[in-house]
């Protein structure tokens, strides 16, 4: 008998007592009733020592500090307005060593969760492949306010499970030494979030 068939047979035998069907109680919150989600998101992000900037106007100043910038191929042109440094588009794909040589990466995201301060990337528009936001030491991430939801269950309604998903809550960190939180281990040591309004709306 193959290992597969044997394991499945063992498990079926183990369930000889036929446990009764289970009704899963879904009484937990599915929608956030907080009045100001953006303020909550900013509070959580800063608690994780991410740096938050408001409005697309913050981008030229931020990118002014970056000599060598990685971007996904479909990054919106207006995010790069006036950028004078070396621009490395991920086409053909940059090697890990090449990515390691760059100063920062600029991407968008799919969803941001206010309750936990989590930014979710799904390889969708302006996000590129996973290695792009992993190897460079600084990640500048543009979050549109219409991408912000309150709670995790709200985020799940917007996600495609078949896409590779990366959830980011603050910069890379460890708590392995006497449970002290230290920011910056293997992932980007700096996470900068730029909150912008959706296209067509006014203000930021």
């Amino acid at each position, binding site marked *: *008998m193959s*290992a*597969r068939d*044997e*394991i*499945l*047979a*063992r*498990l*079926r*035998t*183990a*369930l*000889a*007592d036929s*446990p009764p*069907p289970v009704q*899963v*109680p*879904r*009484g*937990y*919150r599915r929608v956030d009733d907080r009045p100001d989600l953006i303020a909550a998101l900013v509070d*959580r992000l800063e608690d*994780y020592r991410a740096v938050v900037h408001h409005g697309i106007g913050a981008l030229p100043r931020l990118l002014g500090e970056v000599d060598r910038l990685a971007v996904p191929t479909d990054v919106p042109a207006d995010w790069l307005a006036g950028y004078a440094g070396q621009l490395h588009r991920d086409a053909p*794909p940059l090697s*890990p060593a090449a990515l*390691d040589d760059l100063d920062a990466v600029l991407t968008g995201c799919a969803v941001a969760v206010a309750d*936990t301060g989590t930014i979710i990337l799904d390889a969708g528009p302006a996000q590129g*492949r996973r*290695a792009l936001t*992993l190897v460079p030491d600084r990640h500048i991430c543009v979050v549109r306010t219409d991408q912000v939801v309150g709670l*995790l*269950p709200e*985020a*799940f309604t917007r996600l495609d*499970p*078949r*896409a*590779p*998903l*990366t*959830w*980011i*809550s603050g*910069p*890379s*960190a*460890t*708590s*392995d*030494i*006497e*449970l002290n939180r*230290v920011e*910056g*281990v*293997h*992932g*980007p040591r700096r996470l900068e979030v730029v909150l912008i309004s959706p296209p067509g709306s006014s203000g930021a």
Partner: protein
Amino acid sequence: MSHPVAPATGSGRIRTPLPFPTAAKPAVADTQLRANLHRATRTIRAKRARVVDEVPDWEALRDAGSAIKADVQRRLPELLEQFEASATAAGATVHWARDAAEACRIVVALTRAAGADEVVKVKSMATQEIELNEALEAAGIAAYETDLAELIVQLGEDTPSHILVPAIHYNRAQIREIFQRRMSDAPADLSDEPAALAEAARVHLRRRFLSARVAVSGANFAVADTGTLVVVESEGNGRMCLTLPETLISVVGVEKLLPTFTDLEVFLQLLPRSSTGERMNPYTSMWTGVTPGDGPQDVHVVLVDNGRSAVLADPVGRPALSCIRCSACLNVCPVYERAGGHAYGSVYPGPIGAILSPQLTGVADNASLPYASTLCGACYDVCPVKINIPEILVHLRQQAPHPPAERATMRVLSWVMRSPRRWAVALRLARAGAGPLGAYRERRTGARTLRRLPWPASAWTRSRDLPLPAPQTFREWWGKQ
């Protein structure tokens, strides 16, 4: 299949080489270890309590998590078949391993097929359990742990002592000493500041990440309806391993299944707050088979039984399979806090280890572990999936083999206690017998207790006094009033 196949127990590092009291003795006497453990568990208890208190629907989340896991156990065979079909359709290759040795053989064969003689590893309890690093080494393959704590333990040639914080038993000075002694590229003037130590680990592993061809991981969750695997971590070492190499091999216990992708909305709220006391861990990665042009293009999943079918076979002990390895129960356990993780022998220490390890190996092989508890219930209170650990501990104590003399004594006692009349007579006899002794001890020490009983009862009085019967019962006293 006309004949049912009996569930089988597991192998690997889940057995206590020594009985718990023997193994705990040196740990309890090690004041440095106790100080390290006390500081660490107290810190994390406080953090957990703070972030759990801010969630208004915490109990509803626990109820949902507990029920989802009970449902998984009930439907495990069909969910595994569904997972296999979904993951295969998405481009992954699914393997099945009856026990630790078979799982190791599969990983070794896949690594060789990829033409690699080294692998980078994401921290994983399943690979610790099957002793994969030892098997890889025996096959001439170097395994590099990339989680900071696992790296500390690996460099120190030690074993992990905590599910979540494997190096919890070391303080910063001890970690610095290990790095200086064993990490070839550690700076000569390395300080014991956590930031400096983390930086040394970053530099040490960077080149390895960028050049690794094969990575080995576990998974926190495996989703049946989509074939998705999930790894929860903090440092980015997990993302490095899951993203950069060409080949990814994930070793997953069969109990890690969740029915649907949406069920993650419950567990990704319960897990980080219960484990590290954070609202969310810094990084969570989810992948479903192969994504062309993004991440590993050769993706394998090894589904491991290794005793889980035996746990499933016990209706009382079965909920131990609900464990999501958050380690909240370790951090609140008065026994763990004093004895540390190594005393439990298994890779699963603490209260959850005391119920999981004996069930994985068969109770007779780990008979001391169900006694490594005060039954205070703190573990049950913090468990995010509501595993009634004390109930299962008591259940397993009954399963464990007992010496014939103890069994005979208990049979007699049970006969006496079953009848109020026999019980009253027995008490009267005990009072009569112990009366002079009690009076003597009271004169000498002011208390009606015995310090020491003769062997074998001396084992019981080693850590407590035996109270002698009172001169009169409550009923007698009441009768006189």
